């Protein structure tokens, strides 16, 4: 019987159809980190390369996927880490910064391992794609020199494009340079990775703020990419705002001034308003500029603060109090000068439909004395320079309408990406946008369809080396997540530029890599080889595998040895076996240890490496990926 026929029959009888493992997205989803990464970086593969000491190869695999491994290895938002399967298996001793009653899960320190690849790599110049000396005759303008534009440039330069980059600031990097303090991201790391792209021969115009899109359209570029970010910090119109204006600063603007050395000191007592990562950067920067008492205030409870757990921890570690449930009410001005802020304390009265806390004002007013206030309450993109009469469609929020798939605006040939497209995200999303926009620009310039996206590459190869030998380290290492060494607090607070996190050394990295479960090495089941001896079910350390009567998926999930309650994880369901039962595997907490395959007498189970690579505009930027796909 054909697979499709079996599936149709199962559906008709209210049963779960066999899993279609031919669809590459099925196994892709099992690789939680790669699936969660906006650029789908093959995380387990580069972790194995680090384990082998092949740092340059690990770096290149990263560079091809996410363009800025050294930068992202320090300041990435790390969507991969909360997704990491290890976090569903192992809970550590460390409390959560947002909810101290909870212990933190222990995902693999993926981000820090990425930095290891960057820190320990050798000379990679000869591994970079060749840039054709003969250009293809197409001219592209990139507006804004942040991660999105730089990713577009990286992807298009090897194809022979003539690219001009326009940047308002005197140096490239965008938000990565202006809003991320150098004690988190040193300038030399930024210069290296940004410079690598510009050295491909990108024409750069710094200090060149674009004031009119209409004028740009008249310049004859074949395509224009807008990667201007979300440069406008939100303001709070409260009583006293105007009178105290000299001592009230918009967080991101203030961080930019600090980054360029225009601001070198701040008042003795500083209040930071906001609960995101910018607020954490502001308070820690203020401390380094000599403030003696820095207080962060957040309107909502600590539990729902937007900042990353680790950034909150770093701020707390530096002795900065974070007062939650404090809604700003007014700026207190005395003799024309800011002397404090009043807040009204909020109380939580329940949760709304989305599970967010419902807050009510308690009437209790708190005054905090201060000399300066930094507002880090959000930011948005702004397009005062795009004329409204040039045919661009704007949506109800006054933002240009951008196609989610092609990244093109309503003006053909004008593309958007990064925070400029749909509001603030983060660096890794900007890079992902850049890749997609580059594909569209290349298609647009060559008259191909923008809607037909190039397909990802994928391979599935057995990792069996011998009777009980696999080509990957399949043993489970129960070790806890390795902590990252920090510079001393004393030295850090004195030096704005001193990097706080020192990164893993090769010895710590060698321990951390063994924690990776190799989720890309898939458990592949061939139903017609199975003799239903139960050996795999009995050996599975996490009770994933079941031999069971088929049912509809909801009932099947409940009937497993351990009910499969995590619905974000799929069930791997086989076709009918000889007894009429099926094999159903809950992918949720599979350790990928390979014991099912070792215990299988007939080879019905096999461990096969699933390699997956997203398409990019230039295949020259995927040479390490191509090697990975064919290995």
């Amino acid at each position, binding site marked *: 019987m054909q697979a499709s026929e079996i599936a149709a029959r199962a559906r008709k009888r209210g049963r779960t159809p066999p899993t279609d493992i031919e669809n590459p997205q099925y196994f892709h989803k099992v690789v939680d980190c790669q699936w969660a990464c906006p650029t789908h970086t093959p995380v387990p593969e580069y972790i194995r390369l680090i384990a082998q000491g092949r740092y340059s190869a690990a770096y290149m695999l990263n560079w091809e996927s996410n363009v800025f491994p050294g930068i992202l290895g320090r300041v990435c938002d790390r969507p991969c880490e909360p997704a990491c399967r290890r976090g569903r298996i192992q809970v550590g001793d460390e409390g959560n910064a947002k909810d101290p009653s909870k212990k933190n899960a222990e995902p693999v320190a993926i981000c820090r391992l990425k930095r290891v690849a960057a820190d320990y790599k050798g000379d990679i110049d000869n591994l970079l794609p060749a840039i054709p000396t003969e250009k293809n005759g197409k001219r592209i303008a990139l507006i804004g020199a942040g991660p999105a534009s730089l990713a577009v440039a990286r992807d298009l330069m090897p194809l022979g494009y003539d690219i001009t980059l326009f940047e308002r600031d005197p140096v490239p990097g965008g938000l990565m340079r202006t809003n991320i303090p150098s004690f988190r991201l040193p300038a030399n790391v930024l210069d290296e990775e940004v410079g690598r792209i510009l050295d491909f021969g990108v024409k750069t115009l710094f200090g060149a703020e674009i004031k009119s899109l209409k004028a740009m359209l008249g310049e004859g570029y074949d395509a224009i990419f807008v990667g201007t970010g979300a440069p406008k910090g939100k303001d709070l119109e409260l009583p006293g705002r105007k009178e105290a204006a000299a001592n009230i600063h918009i967080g991101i603007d203030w961080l930019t001034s600090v980054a360029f050395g225009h601001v070198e000191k701040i008042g003795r007592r500083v209040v930071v308003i906001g609960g995101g990562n910018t607020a954490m950067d502001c308070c820690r920067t203020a401390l380094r500029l000599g403030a003696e008492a820095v207080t962060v205030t957040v309107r909502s409870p600590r539990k729902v603060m937007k900042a990353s757990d680790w950034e909150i921890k770093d701020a707390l570690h530096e002795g900065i109090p974070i007062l939650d449930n404090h809604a700003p009410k007014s700026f207190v001005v005395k003799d024309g000068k800011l002397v404090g802020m009043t807040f009204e304390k909020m109380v939580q009265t329940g949760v709304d439909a989305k599970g967010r806390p419902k807050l009510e004002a308690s009437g209790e007013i708190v005054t905090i004395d201060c000399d300066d206030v930094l507002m880090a309450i959000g930011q948005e993109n702004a397009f005062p320079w795009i004329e409204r009469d040039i045919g661009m469609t704007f949506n109800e929020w006054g933002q240009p309408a951008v196609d989610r798939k092609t990244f093109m605006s309503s003006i053909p040939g004008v593309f958007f990406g990064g925070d400029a497209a749909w509001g603030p995200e983060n660096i890794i999303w900007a890079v992902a946008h850049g890749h997609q926009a580059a594909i569209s620009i290349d298609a647009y310039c060559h008259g191909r369809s923008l809607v037909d996206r190039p397909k990802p590459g994928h391979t599935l190869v057995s990792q069996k080396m011998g009777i009980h030998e696999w080509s990957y380290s399949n043993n489970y290492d129960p070790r806890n997540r390795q902590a990252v060494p920090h510079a001393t607090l004393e030295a850090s607070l004195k030096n704005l530029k001193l990097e706080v996190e020192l990164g893993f050394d090769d010895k710590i990295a060698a321990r951390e890599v063994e924690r990776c479960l190799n989720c890309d090495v898939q458990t592949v089941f061939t139903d017609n080889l199975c003799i239903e001896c139960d050996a795999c079910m009995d050996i599975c350390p996490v*009770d994933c595998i079941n031999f069971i009567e088929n049912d509809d998926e909801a009932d099947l999930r409940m009937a497993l040895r351990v009910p499969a309650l995590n619905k974000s994880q799929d069930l791997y369901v086989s076709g009918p076996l000889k007894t009429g039962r099926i094999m159903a595997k809950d992918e949720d907490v599979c350790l990928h240890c390979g014991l099912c395959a070792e215990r*299988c007498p007939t080879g019905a189970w096999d461990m096969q490496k699933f390699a997956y690579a997203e398409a990019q505009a230039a295949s020259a930027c995927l040479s390490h990926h191509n090697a990975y796909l064919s290995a």
Partner: protein
Amino acid sequence: MSYIAKPSAHHPALPRNALGLTRRDYEGSMSTLCAGCGHDSITAAIIEACFEMDLPAHRIAKVSGIGCSSKAPTYFLSRSHGFNSVHGRMPSVTTGANMANRDLYYIGVSGDGDTASIGLGQFCHAVRRKLNMTYIVMNNGCYGLTKGQFSATNDKNSPSKKGEANPFDAIDLCQMAIQLGAGFVARSFSGDKRQLLPLIQAAISYKGFAFIDVVSPCVTFNNHPASTKSYEYVRMHNMASENKLDYVEPKEEITAEYDEGTSTSVELHDGSQLMLYKIGEGHDPRDADAAIHTIRTNAAKGTIVTGLLYVNEDQHDLHDVLGTDERPLNGLPMSELCPGSKALEGINARLR
């Protein structure tokens, strides 16, 4: 066998029993048997049974002889008492241990060679004495450790892997056990845990000699198409006496439908019950003659009858028969355990 140990990590939502233990806490070391060996499945069923019955491992003694089967106790209950004895001598060692400490649960694991050949005499006398133990035979019809020679339980019509004919009739251990007076006799299949698990639970609860013959395919030497002890043959020729078995612990309420005509329950000594559903055209498990008849007539057709074959709910065990002290030897004070030379002289004087 594997180069890696079974990872210590377990499913975060793994259920815990009344002792706060997971089924992982009842495991032993990694099996070194061949991949797909039926014995590993039986091991898993024993683990599951002890977990579900909330048995503390230190109240269990596992005893075995020699053979693939007798290696198995290493793979379950690593925290219980254990004795890996001489070939075929598991019953004697268990008898001694049981006499000394009647408070432990005894799980004897043996194989078809260990029980039906070298240990046949030992087996018969343990049954006859109604030793309070669970005796599990992992029956694969061959000597797996020595490259698959026929054992005494291999059916006459079942050739070797290379096609060599078996000239001898098989010993049917269940029939023997019933004839010799075993109080609880069952047969099962390693590939059917739904049947095997409640049988093991009931056997452990049974006070007296409880015997389970488990057909357990040898994947390496006796799982070929012509073998009557292969996964495929047993699945095709298995006639379960019951559609479904349920072990109900003493503390549990019986919630399932109880229908007079199609189901019956066997009361075990500790107050637990084994519910037997739908004994279609089968036999009454309390009738020894009917049990033997059913086994024989089906065997003649090449069918293997599985399930609870025979039970005597009123059996007295060896301690009852001998009238031994209620307390285990380690619970007796020294003065009673060794009453001194005067008492010995008195005994001797009585014998003169």
